């Protein structure tokens, strides 16, 4: 600022003797200069000076302040904060899981209704978890031709087109065997209940062994699902952990631990997973595997059954001369087993992350890795020391199987291609690993039921995740007034609430597939809003730091401006 001093202060003189004298003579010169005052400034020069100071101040005030105001204002789009908090607190929508169970009985209508009523009573008595309840409906398959149900003529199988029927209970009258007895079909959502006709409750009776048996069976089937859901509710949803706690099913500690283990093992939900099957071998053999046909036989059917929940992409690779991680103990030879053994605690370090080309993520979804390791002849068979097993699961990452090549006769070359038969055990292991990585529950025994349970669990976790993300965003917005909120965030929040509402409606009507779709979109939108990039830029920029931004440049400019302004005001006041 060469100008500030030059322009705003006039130049006047002192006597030549004072300024040319040495520093020691200052007192002397002060005395002299007090005797010879400089002549008073002319009126004109005073006014020129005032105008100059004023012109600087006008630039600052008229242009500088608006610029400051305009450029440092933080744009905050209007967010429905109250709604967002309400969603997070489950005030808007209490997720409920009304499961419809179709009962199919070749009984007179009156008796059937009667049986239904008593069974329903029994179920309601057993149920401790209000959000998850079973509702029995009568599948009038024998009396009327309901469009949604189809009776296969031979009577062995009833397929229900209606996806919203969680389970079909078929009452089959039998004459022999212990009755009542139940059989859950492993590949259909059907429970066959065998009974003798005399077990049908009479209209007058309030309870019957058949009704309570059915209720018990149903309760047993859905027990794990209830446990999973109530675990989710108690951990993620504030409303259920608070005052309304008695409503939740109370879980035993070991059950909770077991569920926790399942959840930590499973991958986070994604709409698309990427599966990578890799063959690693420390030698040159085997150099190929019949993976395509194996995948078609063992994996594709499994993936197809999951198609309602997630999509999958698959790729495979073969890597030769790929030794496992050198950082773990070398395998030891165990004479008693006649095998090489790996210690259990080394299994977590088995993956050679530095050299094996297992990319963390291909495309959008998370990658699930399946590693097939074929040890060399000199280290074969390779087993796990503690239990003699040959496969293990790495939580949220994938699975490893050691495939020991069949012992070869001396001199005979090991086959270079792994055939479908050789791969079959490994593929079974991979399938099991995939199921637990995807979070498929252990019970009940029927795969369709497991899948629909998984669907509801995923749906619940997506739903809670989306609403708690919204709550977190609302709290963030309140806690950090300095972060900007772009319009995109507001739009995402709008879309999240809309889809959550839709999901909620679907839930109340028991349409879980539709609810899953909406919850999935809602969760994606909520995440997008929460992780908006332009918002976080300012998060770590507290107000104190602004001083450091403003002061170094503006401070030196402001000081002469302020001093000159104050001086002029003072002289004005003195004069008047």
């Amino acid at each position: 600022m060469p100008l500030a001093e030059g322009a705003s202060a006039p130049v006047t003189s002192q006597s030549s003797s004072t300024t040319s004298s040495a520093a020691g003579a200052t007192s002397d010169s002060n005395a002299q200069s007090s005797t010879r005052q400089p002549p008073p400034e002319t009126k004109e020069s005073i006014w020129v000076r005032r105008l100059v100071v004023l012109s600087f101040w006008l630039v600052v005030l008229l242009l500088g302040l608006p610029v400051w105001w305009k450029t440092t204002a933080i744009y905050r789009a209007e967010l429905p904060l109250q709604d967002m908090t309400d969603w997070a607190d489950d005030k808007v929508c209490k997720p409920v899981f009304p499961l419809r169970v179709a009962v199919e009985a070749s009984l007179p209508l009156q008796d059937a209704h009667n049986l239904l009523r008593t069974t329903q009573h029994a179920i309601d008595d057993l149920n401790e978890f209000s959000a998850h309840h079973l509702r029995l409906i009568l599948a009038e398959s024998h009396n009327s031709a309901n469009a949604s149900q189809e009776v296969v003529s031979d009577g062995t199988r009833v397929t229900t087109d209606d996806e919203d029927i969680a389970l079909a209970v078929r009452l089959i009258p039998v004459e022999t065997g212990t009755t009542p007895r139940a059989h859950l079909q492993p590949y259909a959502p059907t429970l066959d209940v065998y009974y003798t006709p005399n077990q049908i409750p009479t209209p007058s009776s309030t309870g019957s062994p058949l009704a309570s048996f059915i209720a018990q069976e149903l309760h047993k089937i859905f027990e794990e699902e209830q446990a999973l859901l109530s675990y989710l509710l108690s951990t993620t949803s504030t409303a259920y952990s608070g005052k309304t706690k008695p409503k939740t099913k109370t879980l035993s500690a070991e059950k909770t631990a077991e569920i926790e283990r399942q959840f930590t093992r499973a991958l986070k939900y994604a709409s698309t997973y990427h599966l990578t099957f890799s063959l690693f071998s420390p030698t040159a053999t085997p150099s190929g595997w019949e993976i395509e046909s194996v995948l078609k036989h063992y994996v594709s059917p499994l993936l197809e059954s999951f198609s309602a929940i997630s999509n999958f992409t698959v790729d495979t690779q073969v890597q030769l001369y790929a030794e496992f991680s050198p950082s773990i103990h070398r395998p030891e030879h165990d004479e008693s087993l006649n095998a090489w053994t790996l210690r259990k605690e080394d299994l977590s370090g088995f993956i050679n992350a530095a050299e094996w080309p297992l990319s963390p993520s291909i495309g959008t979804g998370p990658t699930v890795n399946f590693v097939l390791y074929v040890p060399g002849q000199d280290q074969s068979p390779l087993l796990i020391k503690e239990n003699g097993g040959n496969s293990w699961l790495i939580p949220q990452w994938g699975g490893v199987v050691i495939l020991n090549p069949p012992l070869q006769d001396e001199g005979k070359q090991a086959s270079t291609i792994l055939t479908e038969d050789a791969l079959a055990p490994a593929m079974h292991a991979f399938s099991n690993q995939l199921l637990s990585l995807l979070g498929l529950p252990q019970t009940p025994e029927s795969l369709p039921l497991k899948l629909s349970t998984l669907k509801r669990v995923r749906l619940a976790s997506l739903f809670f995740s989306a609403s708690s993300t919204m709550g977190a965003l609302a709290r963030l917005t309140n806690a950090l007034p300095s972060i900007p909120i772009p319009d995109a965030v507001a739009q995402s929040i709008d879309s999240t609430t809309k889809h959550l509402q839709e999901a909620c409606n679907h839930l109340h009507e028991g349409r879980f597939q539709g609810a899953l779709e909406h919850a999935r979109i809602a969760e994606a939108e909520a995440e997008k809003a929460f992780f908006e990039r332009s918002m976080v830029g300012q998060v770590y920029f507290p107000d104190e730091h602004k001083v450091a931004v403003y002061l170094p440049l503006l401070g030196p400019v402001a000081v002469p401006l302020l001093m000159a302004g104050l001086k002029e005001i003072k002289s004005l006041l003195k004069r008047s």
Partner: protein
Amino acid sequence: MDQQKALLFGAAAAVRLFLFTAFPSLPSLLAGRVEVSTPVTSFKRLQEGLFLYVHNVSPYDGGVYHQAPLLLPLFSLLPNPSHYPFATNLLYTAVDLLGAHALMLVADSGQSITTRLSKSSRKDLRWNSAAVAASFLFNPFTLAACIARSTSALTNLFVLLALAKASQGASITFILSLSIASYLSMHPLLLFPPLLILCYDVRASKSKVAPSPLSFTIVHAVALVVTLCGLLYVSALLMGSWEFLSATYGVRLLLPDLTPNVGLWWYFFTEMFDSFREFFLGVFWLHVVSYMPGLTIRLRKQPLYVATTLTGIFAVFTPYPSIADAALYLSLVPLFRHLFPLMRYSFLASAVVLYASFLGPTFYHLWIYAGSGNANFFYAITLVWSLGFSIIIGDSLYAVLRDELDVERPELRGKEVARI
């Protein structure tokens, strides 16, 4: 006198044409130097824009060309400079000679020494106009800008023309050249108030009755606005849309291109937090603007000096300065030969500027090509460069105030003074 002038101009033209023809790679070498060519004046970018324009594509589409649209039809008249560079070289030589001519007119008018309201006590101490023109024509910075064919040579020409016409009191040509200069590079618009005062003073001293200051101001301001709007409108007609505004003046205002240059902005804004970028753009521009009213009011009696100092401030504080801007200021300073004895730091200032001009290219080389330095090296040198110019500006301000005091109180002449 005429013979002297002809000799000078002939020599200057010969030097330029010699450099152009004897070193055919020199123009493109200089055009690639960041000290000479900025994103808003580079000849290479002009050629890119020209190529697009000739092929009927909007020249601003590539995001490379940031110069005024009306330059395009002018340069499209010339033969392709990569094959027949002679016409372009001739044009730039002529531009420099015209600028020198304008500078001679300013020097001849004597407005730097004796104005209507003030008369320096050292009025006999002056260089003749040929010497002033020579200091412009043979200034290595001017030569470099000319050889690099930077379009700031054109801006300089029109600024000099505006100065010349204002110091002659020729309103129409003054307004016309100032509006073209502003149209080309925007910041010369800030020269309007001091040059208006200059023009008014000359007119008032020429005629018996001084024109009314208010109507004089209004007429000239309206004329300036009308010519500027006319130029912009013609540009819009030529381009078919108004998008050129954001590509030319928008770039100058918002600094999207952070290519290093000799100014202070680029480094500062590469380091700037994104959220404060706009605020500090405002601060930096206001800093440039804020000098104008204060200087104009304080030195109302010497408007030509105010205009000169403002060109110096432009050379230091605008977003895309180059050595061409410095050359303009350095060529105007010799008009104030009478202030030289009063300047206290002329040795320091010239040493600093020389130091920066030699070390600047060296440090840039170390940073970009050798890789043994970093951006701080070059930035430190641009700081020194700016410091040198600030010293010249501040020192000459001191000198002009001291000179004024000598006029007010002749008895203090030659004595030491102190500020109180």
